[in-house]
């Protein structure tokens, strides 16, 4: 396995009230291999999107990535890069697609123009060659009648088609890693199935690594090789997908599973997690999940639990330490 990404102790901070900085991403570590799909799962405000932006140092000021964070893209130390160096990895080595393709596409240029622009930003090719490649990309992402869609403006395309155009733009630079941040959240389920199919096919055919960021455990189950569950800026549990789904161990992960309505099995009353995710300024001392945790005990208030690394299954919970 070729390692394409290594993230160690990633911290992203923003200035808060009375001169303090708070960290919506607080010590996140993970790795990604070539051809692998890893899912970062969590609810709003858990820090999953900021984590993905931090990979290419796209955190908007006054936010900043802590200089002691480790981000290695293959042999490249991303934390050591500046200006032009950063520009050369953004898009080129790490491609990104987001939830809402309409806001990411420019309404006054055609799909072909925008894909062509992405190609010419990274490769010295003629306009005609860029157009030729754009056409091939549109075919690759499964747009029917691609030659005609090349000259379509974003408003003339459906939501699913726009997301395919965004994927084509991200692929234009032939990145090693594709970050897909809630790529199907704004789409209908039948369209969602189409887009996930496309992503999976591309990962296999191009050997890309995919970092899939989502709130939906259902999407993860069929697509990701590994899952990391985030809560309050930290990874609280990580395991290969079948293992995590067979034995969800962190009380937060268990709570998420118990909250999801199912299409099979007996219909039971849902058991939601009490309360809601607190903002970073209100994260409690000790374990951050403690105020909502049905299994909390004394130790959870005293100190934050470390990430206990098992053979296949990591978890940040005092229960993993055998309780007391």
């Amino acid at each position, binding site marked *: 396995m070729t390692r394409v990404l290594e993230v160690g102790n990633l911290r992203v901070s923003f200035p808060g009230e009375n001169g303090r900085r708070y960290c919506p991403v607080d010590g996140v570590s993970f790795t990604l291999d070539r051809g692998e799909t890893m899912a970062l799962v969590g*609810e*709003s405000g858990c820090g999953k999107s900021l984590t993905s932006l931090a990979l290419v140092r796209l955190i908007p000021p006054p936010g900043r990535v802590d200089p002691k964070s480790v981000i290695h893209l293959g042999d490249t130390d991303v934390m050591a890069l500046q200006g032009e160096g950063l520009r050369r990895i953004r898009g080129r080595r790490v491609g990104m697609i987001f939830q809402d393709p309409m806001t990411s596409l420019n309404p006054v240029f055609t799909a072909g123009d925008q894909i062509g622009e992405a190609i010419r930003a990274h490769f010295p090719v003629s306009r005609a060659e860029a157009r030729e490649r754009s056409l091939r990309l549109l075919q690759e992402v499964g747009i*029917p009648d691609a030659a005609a869609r090349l000259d379509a403006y974003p408003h003339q395309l*459906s*939501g*699913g*088609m726009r997301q395919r155009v965004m994927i084509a733009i991200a692929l234009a630079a032939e990145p090693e890693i594709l970050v897909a941040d809630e790529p199907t959240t704004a789409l*209908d*389920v*039948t*369209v*969602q*199935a*189409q887009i996930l*199919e496309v992503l999976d096919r591309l990962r296999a055919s191009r050997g890309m690594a995919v970092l899939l960021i989502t*709130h*939906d*455990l*259902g*999407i*993860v*189950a*069929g697509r990701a090789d590994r899952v990391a569950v985030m809560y309050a800026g930290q990874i609280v549990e990580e395991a290969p*997908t*079948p293992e995590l*789904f067979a034995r969800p161990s962190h009380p937060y992960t268990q*709570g*998420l*599973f*118990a*909250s*999801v*309505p*199912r*299409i*099979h099995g007996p*219909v039971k*009353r*849902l*058991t*939601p*997690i009490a309360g*809601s*995710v607190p903002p970073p300024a209100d994260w409690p001392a000790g374990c951050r999940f403690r105020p909502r945790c049905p299994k909390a005990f004394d130790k959870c208030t005293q100190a934050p639990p470390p990430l206990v690394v098992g053979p296949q299954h990591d978890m940040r919970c005092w229960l993993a330490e055998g309780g007391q």
Partner: protein
Amino acid sequence: MTAGAAPTAPLLVVRDLVKHYHATGLFRESTRPIRAVDGVSFEVGRGETLALVGESGCGKSSVGRTILRLQEPTSGTAVFDGIELFPLDRKELRRLRRRMQIIFQDPYSSLNPRMTIGAAVAEGLEIHRLAPRKDIPARVNALLEEVGLDSSYARRYPHEFSGGQRQRIGIARALAVQPAFIVCDEPVSALDVSVQAQVLNLLSDLQRERGLSYLFIAHDLAVVRQIARRVAVMYLGRIVEEGPTEALLSRPRHPYTVALLSAVPEPDPARQRSRIVLGGDLPSPSNPPSGCPFHPRCFHPRRNERCSVEVPRLRPVGSTTAACHYAEDTPLPEQPKIP
């Protein structure tokens, strides 16, 4: 207001509801109407939930809004507790709205940012003069507590609350006037899963305690299964299948229901079945296909010319009613056939 129908009759009866929109204005491309709702009939029983399921643009929200006369219907009838809704004038309508309420996907956009939560919940009580002025604060506090909020929140403003709390506020507002019927328009779609579960439980509890009837509009079949015992699936302005939720999910008869069901992402790696990935996009509701609206995307092995000519009627097949000429032979999700 006295009930006009026998207590065993359905609370709401909708027949042949049609809602067409006409594109107007500078960028108008054609005068062809958008057929958002194209002949929809259903009933909602007392204390019952009917779920209306479909994807964006299928017309499910238009159905809910038209019944409440937030939008005027093009044609059809809706009878609520024996009262014809569509001929009512403004004054009669206002009186009836006390008994029919709506909650939206995004309660934030329906809350006035400069009005306290208490004032927002009290509004309905004041408009309909349901309580003497001095009793209103106590009523508001009781409502907030009923939906699981602290009564001290009455003095706070909408921006101070999370999405889940705002949805609870929206529910408290709807409950204030003691309605019999609530249109729930995607009430949990914008919420995180843990909060979504809280709101679904709350809606079930309120239904049981107050005997409410819901028209629950949603796109997520798993959510629908949790809350509704009957479900109607819409496609391009029409109901294509209707029936008891469990029967419809275990043996769908319309190919669109089959596809929709197979696309539901399931949080269980052992249950990853082969998906039916539908070809193409939803056709435009201003230019729907002839015959069966689903025929251009249909994967049914018996699809033929008849489907593009003859509109299939809703008819009983097995335990549901389905609008497909060949509903008897619709393949199951476990044995998908991709065109």
